């Protein structure tokens, strides 16, 4: 007993230099907020945008579909903040209605493709051997195929509609995610803490869920924020090619295209949705970087 007491004393000295409590997630996020103002601004912008997109029927006096021909192609003014389009519809109103589809298209298929990709990639990386070979060759085939073309084929087969856009984009997006997840898994599999977990008899499923996935998260969060904009852009391309969102619905890609022919005399029709796409893409990236820093336990010390 006396021996143990002495040992404990030695250790307390050892501890004196270290920070005390481990912190809650909320505290961590708050500290990250102080350090990374850009990420916070991005988050605020995205939240406001989502809020506006949801409540646009109450916020805007204008109808998104039927316009007033007498006020077509008007420049931005107090009544129409972002001007009107070729059919006399308020551009801001259409922009916010379009945000519903564009944001959903950015998030939902990306999330689905992340889930498919991470599941397949982690299994391939952990199992190795034949399983790895089959899954990764499948991913190679997907990547070798032009993704937009594939999405178009899927859209032609399934027909129009937002749900089908989700499906098409989710099916073409998983392969690159699988590659990242696989390579992360392979390097994490060799870390000593995974070996240590194996050495106390932890089962593979639990090792994957508890030890590998959480440590993949920083890379996956960044990938997620990078894939959202590309999904938004893919939807724009599909809509442009006539297999995506159809009029009179609006999505940002569609709006950019419709405004193309008026680029000289009414540039705001195309520029407003273009700026919106750019801002959302930037915000996603800033937010992703901020989250990655905040969620990385190694960086919490400073």
């Amino acid at each position, binding site marked *: 007993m006396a021996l143990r007491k002495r040992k404990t004393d030695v*250790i307390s000295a*050892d501890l004196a230099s270290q920070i005390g409590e*481990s912190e809650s997630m909320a505290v961590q996020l708050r500290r990250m907020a102080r350090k990374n103002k850009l990420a916070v601004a991005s988050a605020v912008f995205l939240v406001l945008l989502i809020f506006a997109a949801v409540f646009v029927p109450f916020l805007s006096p204008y109808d998104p579909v039927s316009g007033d021909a007498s006020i077509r192609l008007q420049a931005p003014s107090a009544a129409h903040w972002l001007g009107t389009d070729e059919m006399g519809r308020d551009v801001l109103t259409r922009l916010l209605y379009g945000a519903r589809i564009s944001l959903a298209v950015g998030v939902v298929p990306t999330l689905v493709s992340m889930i498919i990709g991470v599941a397949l990639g982690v299994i391939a990386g952990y199992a190795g051997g034949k399983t790895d070979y089959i899954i990764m060759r499948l991913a190679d085939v997907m990547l070798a195929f032009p993704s937009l073309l594939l999405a178009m084929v899927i859209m032609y087969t399934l027909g129009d509609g937002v749900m089908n856009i989700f499906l098409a984009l989710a099916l073409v997006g998983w392969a690159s995610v699988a590659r990242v997840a696989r390579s992360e898994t392979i390097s994490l599999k060799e870390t000593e*803490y995974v070996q240590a*977990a194996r050495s*106390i008899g*932890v089962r593979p499923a639990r090792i994957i869920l508890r*030890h590998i996935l959480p440590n993949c998260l920083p890379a996956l969060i960044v990938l997620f924020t990078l894939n959202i904009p590309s999904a938004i852009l893919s939807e724009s391309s599909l809509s442009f090619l006539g297999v995506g969102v159809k009029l009179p619905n609006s999505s940002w890609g569609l709006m950019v295209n419709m405004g193309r022919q008026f680029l000289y005399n009414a540039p705001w029709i195309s520029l407003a949705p273009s700026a919106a796409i750019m801002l959302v893409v930037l915000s996603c990236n800033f937010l992703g970087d901020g989250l990655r820093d905040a969620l990385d336990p*190694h960086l919490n010390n400073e």
Partner: protein
Amino acid sequence: MDEMTLKIEHLCSGFFTERGYVPAVDDVSLLIPRGHVVGIVGESGCGKSMIARSVMGLLKYPGRITGGSIRLDGRELTGLTDRELQPIRGREMAMIFQEPMTSLNPVIPVGKQMREALLLHEDISRSAAKAEVIRMLSHVGVSEPEKRYNAYPHELSGGLRQRVMIAMAMICKPKLLIADEPTTALDVTIEAQILRLIRDLSRETGMSVLLISHNLGVIAQMCDTVYVMYAGKIVEQADALTLFDSYAHPYTRGLMDSVVRLDATPRRLPAIGGVVPNLLRLPAGCAFAPRCPHAVERCQAERPALEELSPGHWCRCFERGRE
């Protein structure tokens, strides 16, 4: 119950590489009686860690066990699948790794990581497991264990993390603890504390320990029996006293000579000349012959066998004791 906790007989394991089979462990036999601390000493790359990983069934690809038997408490381990090994790992045998900085998952509080082993192997409630983890933490000398329970690994020092690793390995009271260079990454004061802790725990619980080290001081302080390894083979084995008093193999002598002594007049520290041979192209004779100051013609042509010099003291050399 078997008198021997671990009985390794004629173990061979190695790597299948593109350039051929690398015999990292060649015909090694090793016994660990219950409650004993057995040491393996040798320089880097001599196969020490391969033995540890072979026992745990944690050989990294393309490593594989190619022959021999490993019996833990009478139960054969070679040939078991990963699934069959899972209930044995952690419960019957556990391992402490070299690098405490990377042996703990950075995103899970240390208490929860320790609890994992208990929940896996024992029918125990979460709160009871937590209490047990806290008891174990204080047992290995972690102060304020309730507070440490929720700490993340990066919030702990190297010494504390290694204590946590030991507590994690010991929590299901395994019969065998494999410590693969447990103190290499720590400074000397912490090293002494950790070694004393392992020794005390082994005495208290009757647990057997396989201690792997390249540090003769550590081995001398800790072990009952010592095996000296060179190029995948045991070259000398004896109880610790015999080995340090009357070592016979030239390689062991080389190791002993290269220890810094504080009580002798300062001199240039002799090193063993040359390097470890390439395991892909082992010499025809004794693997140590190219570096051996006493090598004779016979050493280049024939491989010596382990011979018993005195009861329990074995040596693999033609020229031992002839000086």
